[in-house]
């Protein structure tokens, strides 16, 4: 009798164990579309005992996961986010620089007008056309300078937003560490992995799980953002000179500038775009505007206006290279009266055109970029550099997408939920549970008969 009672216990444990399998399979199916979810399994183990006892018991649900793979996915995802964000920022800037008339086109049009005024140097229509072309060149350079500045400020705003988001994620990651330590729940571990990936998407860096089971998140350069259950914050402070945000890891009273250290994720893309790409483009545009104004002024001021006077500037002389694009302006006296256009050699008459020819000759002289390029080539190459960088970023996106897809496949192979497979598991556990129920019912019948015959 006591053996039959033991068999009832075995049956009961068996039903419980099989039901655990049903529960885990159902949970897997329920989370088939949950981002970051790792499928779980329940391991059944036989209970040792005498031949008629024994039985089965279910262990805790285990998640299919690989910390190494998760680390590779974080790294690849950070890299993909960086290249994608770079490609987007560069594409926007490229569109601004190439939409409508380009700078090189406007400068070429100015030279074209100068060649025409050389054929009719006293013609007010031709002289006005030169002044209009100069004004249009100035407007175009202003527009492009504004576009670069806007793109730079947009990147700066994204940096501020993403730093705030990273601070939030770091705190959530520390909380997830706490939950994993407290409960050991696989779902908490999934959430922690997901948060670490989202943080990597923003900041790059690396996360490792130490022997104590706690995840530590370290930025490139060594600044610790999350250490177990403790999180530092990523704060932005405007630089007093540029007004652009510098990024600091703040932990209590400690502040560490990581602006130059972040080398992956969206933050790195925007920092690189803001501090390298846009800064270089603006610097090249400033240099172009400076070279345009100074080279034209040198020739223009040496020649004579319609009234024979010399010393007239064509553009307002730039004070310095920095800011020259935004400050570029046609000389007010020329803008007011095209008679001040100096296209005649000094000491000749108004019908002379040697000044106009000398101004036109600048089109083919290396007067830009330290005497290495023509003005139009410098303008073309400034835009081309943004395009080349954009093409490289798009190539990086394609490469990083391939790597990420490959790793997603590996993760899916390991941890993804296959609903067909889970339905099979469900049926398998359900059948086993039914069989155990029948087994219990049979034992119950035997016990009833035994009791009745007593």
């Amino acid at each position, binding site marked *: 009798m006591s053996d039959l009672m033991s068999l009832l216990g075995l049956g009961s444990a068996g039903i419980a164990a099989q039901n655990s399998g049903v529960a885990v399979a159902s949970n897997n199916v329920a989370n*088939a*579309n949950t981002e970051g979810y790792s499928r779980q399994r329940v391991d059944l183990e036989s209970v040792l005992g005498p031949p008629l006892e024994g039985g089965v018991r279910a262990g805790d649900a285990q998640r299919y996961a690989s910390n190494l793979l998760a680390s590779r996915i974080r790294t690849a995802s950070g890299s993909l986010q960086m290249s994608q964000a770079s490609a987007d920022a*560069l594409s926007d800037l*490229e*569109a601004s620089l*190439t939409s409508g008339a*380009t700078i*090189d*086109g406007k400068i*070429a*049009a100015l*030279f*074209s*007008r*100068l*060649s*025409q005024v*050389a*054929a*009719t*140097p*006293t*013609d007010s229509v*031709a002289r006005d056309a030169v002044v209009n072309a100069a004004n249009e060149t100035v407007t175009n350079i202003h527009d492009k300078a504004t576009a670069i500045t806007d793109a730079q400020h947009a990147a700066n705003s994204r940096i501020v937003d993403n730093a705030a988001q990273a601070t939030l994620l770091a705190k959530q990651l520390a909380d997830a560490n706490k939950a994993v330590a407290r409960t050991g729940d696989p779902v908490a571990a999934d959430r922690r992995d997901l948060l670490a990936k989202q943080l990597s998407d923003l900041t790059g860096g690396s996360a490792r799980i130490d022997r104590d089971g706690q995840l530590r998140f370290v930025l490139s350069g060594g600044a610790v953002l999350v250490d177990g259950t403790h999180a530092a914050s990523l704060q932005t402070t405007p630089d007093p000179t540029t007004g652009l945000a510098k990024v600091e890891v703040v932990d209590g009273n400690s502040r560490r500038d990581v602006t130059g250290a972040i080398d992956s994720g969206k933050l790195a893309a925007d920092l690189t775009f803001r501090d390298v790409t846009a800064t270089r483009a603006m610097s090249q545009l400033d240099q172009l505007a400076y070279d345009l104004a100074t080279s034209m002024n040198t020739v223009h001021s040496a020649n004579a206006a319609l009234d024979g006077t010399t010393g007239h500037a064509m553009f307002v002389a730039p004070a310095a290279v920095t800011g020259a694009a935004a400050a570029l302006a046609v000389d007010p006296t020329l803008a007011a009266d095209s008679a001040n256009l100096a296209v*005649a050699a000094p000491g*000749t*008459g*108004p*019908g*002379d*055109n040697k000044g106009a*020819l000398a101004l*036109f*000759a600048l*089109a*083919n002289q290396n007067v830009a970029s330290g005497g290495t390029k023509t003005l*139009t*080539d410098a303008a*073309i*190459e400034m*835009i*081309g550099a*943004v*395009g*080349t960088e*954009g*093409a490289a970023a798009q190539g990086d996106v394609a490469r990083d997408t391939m790597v990420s*897809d490959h790793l*997603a*496949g590996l993760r*899916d*192979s*390991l941890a*993804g*939920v*296959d*609903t*067909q*497979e889970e*339905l099979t598991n469900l049926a398998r556990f359900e059948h086993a549970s039914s069989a155990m129920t029948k087994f219990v019912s049979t034992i119950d019948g035997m016990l009833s008969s035994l009791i009745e015959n007593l």
Partner: protein
Amino acid sequence: MRITDHRLVDMSTAAASTNQSRVADISEEVSSGLRVSRPSQDPSAWLAAQRARVRATLADGTAQAFETGHDHLVATDGTLSQISDIVMRVRALAIQGASDSTSADGRASMSTEVRGLFSAAVVAGNTRSADGEYLLAGASSLTEPFDPATGAYRGDATTRAVTTDATTTQLASVAGSSLTAANGVDVFATLDRLATALSTNDVATVRSLVGDLDTATSQLASTRSQTGSMMAVIEQARTAHGELVTHLATTISNAVEADTAVAASELAKATQALEVSRAVSSHIVSMLNPTSSG
């Protein structure tokens, strides 16, 4: 490798999305006619096309300049032709006036005609271009070059060059100084002196001026010849410009324009790939749907 049903769906969706992007890209290429519309699509091709566009803009400017120069030369040649015709007529009158058979009254009458021709010649010498410049004034092109009363030249010897391409210029004007003593005889002064000699019946002077009129004739012929040479060079520049424009258009086309036939073929292939990937996606979804038949 274990591949889940979700992975199959993701992969087929990604394939359909990639093919859809490809169709969109090629459609844009076909509709715009441009293979490269942004530098990032093909940096070196965009740079080559942009440089060609700059050259084309400069070439357009120089073309307008040398066409204006050509127009001035045509007008100048017309003026010189008028003056030349006048000088020929005056020379005929001078020969007639130098003849012993011509009476004093006849010379007086000739003088009146020569005076009229002198005025007509000065008016011709003071011809202006369409843009208001005096054609023969040199750099002083806003001032009448020849004194209407005396025919004295008040301009200078400056000639004007125009651009014929990005780096070359060509003279495209002659100054009225070519009709002055500096280059032979002073044409208008010679006419004036002849008119005076005829009116005063000064036969000796009339005879001596026939030689000067011969010199003036050859002076005008030489100046017209120079004008013709300048126009010929501009004609050559016009031909070269046409070839350059064709070359630059070809360069731009080769660099950034789409080959319509190739693009259409690519569009057909991409569309077919998209349809197949959609069919595969649909098949996979149907296969994974436990409630679907079959």
